[in-house]
């Protein structure tokens, strides 16, 4: 009997009525992962510990809807005693000494951590192909990428291995792979989820979020993992709320903006057509949709390159071969240790970004590039705020193309930024962004739509997303529901 292809409410009922036990779900998840092994979605499995935990839960009361459910974490979230590699050689054998706050919250709900998912090295990339452990594959077509950097989390959800995964999103790394694999991915407002224990890439942009097969389950997981944390100074001092509360509510009367640049000729015709069909569906249901100009969107990639690479060069300075991780064997002196460890420990994309970032922050360059980027970033955020004075939400495509071939060339350093051109602005302004599947291309690869909300208005985004999900009623299981 299979349970993990059911919806959360059905599974919860079965657990409550003691018709199934958490161990049944854990065993099923590992069976699924085993049969989908060729997807390479995981770097580390937590089998022994997960089974132990499931057995412990048998004596406990099923006290919440997430109780006993398996969950996968992106491998840049630290887990005490469980290897955390960030997809990098430099942390290949790194075992953290503490749990991230999000891990504590998951444990409080008595969910069961199944494993750590594959990702671009230090979350730098757009196809998960910069992973030291090889690229994960797209369940819709195993010759295609599943996007990145949260590629493994996207793949395992799309393949229906389990219901829940966590990703992280610095410049689109939840939404873009969600779009490529036909799942729901939410990057919440900056500060909504504590970043304590998320290995930092670009601290002013990073945010974790839920990746699930549908909108409702996504909102349920966000309920569990959000909230203020005194261990993260940038976590928002907001009361917790129920993100499912607007799901199913009428969307008529909503006002939605579509930024012209995000529907310009940078996006493939096929994707634009699908977005236009969705817009038509909304208009037919009394939603107002206006195409508008939003300033600075065309500069977002440049801002991202400066800010993300600058912050990365600083954050990744901690990997020095002294305190943890890979270390050069016989260094001549400490300088030699740094140079050799980092030269051999980091992969090509990471080295490239650290070097450019170091250059951008050095001496006078900090004024010429970094400070200027921060100024434009501030104006961009104000521009978004102006849009939200008049509109409830913004919609746009999530990606410019559908998932491309795993064998496509990787030698263009601009490619990974270009892939994320539509999803980057959200991180610049700290806004929440969500991907919801809206259809398929001619070669049957998923197409996603991005919903962008004002800060802390995730509930409204789920409202619109669930409306679209229900109306379209797409078959989003790559196996067509067969297991």
């Amino acid at each position: 009997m299979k349970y993990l292809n059911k919806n959360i409410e059905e599974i919860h009922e079965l657990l409550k009525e003691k018709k199934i036990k958490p161990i049944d779900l854990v065993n099923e998840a590992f069976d699924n992962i085993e049969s989908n092994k060729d997807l390479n979605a995981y770097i580390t499995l937590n089998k022994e510990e997960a089974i132990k935990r499931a057995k412990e839960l048998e004596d406990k009361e099923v006290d919440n809807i997430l109780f006993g459910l398996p969950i996968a974490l992106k491998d840049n979230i630290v887990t005490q005693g469980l290897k955390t590699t960030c997809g990098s050689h430099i942390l290949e054998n790194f075992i953290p000494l503490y749990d991230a706050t999000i891990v504590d919250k998951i444990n409080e709900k008595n969910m069961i951590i199944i494993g750590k998912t594959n990702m671009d090295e230090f979350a730098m990339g757009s196809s998960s192909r910069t992973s030291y452990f090889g690229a994960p594959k797209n369940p819709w077509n195993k010759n295609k990428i599943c996007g990145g950097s949260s590629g493994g989390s996207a793949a395992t959800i799309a393949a229906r291995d389990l219901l829940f995964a966590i990703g992280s999103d610095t410049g689109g790394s939840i939404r873009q792979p969600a779009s490529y694999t036909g799942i729901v991915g939410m990057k919440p407002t900056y500060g909504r989820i504590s970043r304590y224990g998320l290995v930092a890439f670009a601290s002013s942009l990073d945010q974790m979020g839920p990746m699930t097969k549908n909108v409702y389950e996504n909102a349920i997981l966000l309920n569990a993992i959000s909230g203020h944390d005194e261990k993260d100074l940038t976590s928002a001092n907001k009361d917790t709320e129920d993100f499912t509360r607007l799901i199913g509510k009428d969307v008529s009367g909503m006002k939605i903006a579509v930024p012209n640049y995000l529907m310009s000729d940078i996006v493939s015709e096929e994707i634009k057509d699908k977005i236009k069909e969705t817009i038509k569906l909304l208009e037919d249901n009394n939603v107002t949709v206006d195409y508008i100009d939003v300033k600075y969107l065309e500069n977002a990639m440049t801002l991202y390159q400066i800010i993300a690479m600058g912050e990365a060069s600083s954050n990744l300075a901690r990997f020095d071969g002294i305190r943890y991780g890979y270390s050069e064997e016989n260094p001549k002196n400490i300088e030699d240790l740094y140079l050799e460890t980092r030269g051999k420990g980091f992969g090509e994309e990471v080295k490239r970004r650290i070097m450019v970032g170091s250059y951008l922050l050095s001496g006078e360059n900090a004024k010429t590039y970094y400070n200027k980027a921060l100024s434009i970033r501030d104006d961009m955020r104000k521009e978004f705020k102006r849009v939200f004075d008049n509109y409830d939400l913004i919609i746009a495509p999530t990606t410019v193309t559908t998932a491309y071939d795993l064998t496509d060339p990787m030698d263009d350093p601009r490619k990974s930024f270009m892939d994320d051109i539509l999803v980057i602005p959200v991180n610049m302004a700290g806004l929440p962004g969500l991907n919801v599947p809206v259809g398929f291309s001619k070669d049957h690869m998923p197409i996603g739509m991005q919903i962008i909300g004002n800060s802390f208005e995730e509930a409204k985004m789920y409202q619109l997303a669930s409306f679209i999900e229900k109306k379209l009623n797409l078959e989003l299981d790559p196996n067509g529901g067969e297991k």
Partner: protein
Amino acid sequence: MEEKLSREEILHVANLARIKLTEEEIEKYRVQLKKLLNDVEKINEVEGYDNDILIAPWESNTTLREDSEGSMLDPKAVVENAPRHSGNYISVPVVIGESEGA
């Protein structure tokens, strides 16, 4: 001809980043970094913005936590996580000069 940074420029940024590159990498990065730096130059074409800056998109007031005693990591475990350690200390190679026998 493909635009490239000079060898010296690459060695300079690699040194800033404390990364040792192989000869092959130096040649590859001469082309690749030039492409990225060309992108970054586009920042100078943007006009019309004011001088306010946004370092991080914080929405709500951040608060300082109370200054109270909390649980700490076990120092022994921290030290043991270091590739080189001795007793309660993390050890490092020589800082000035070169170690003998290396």
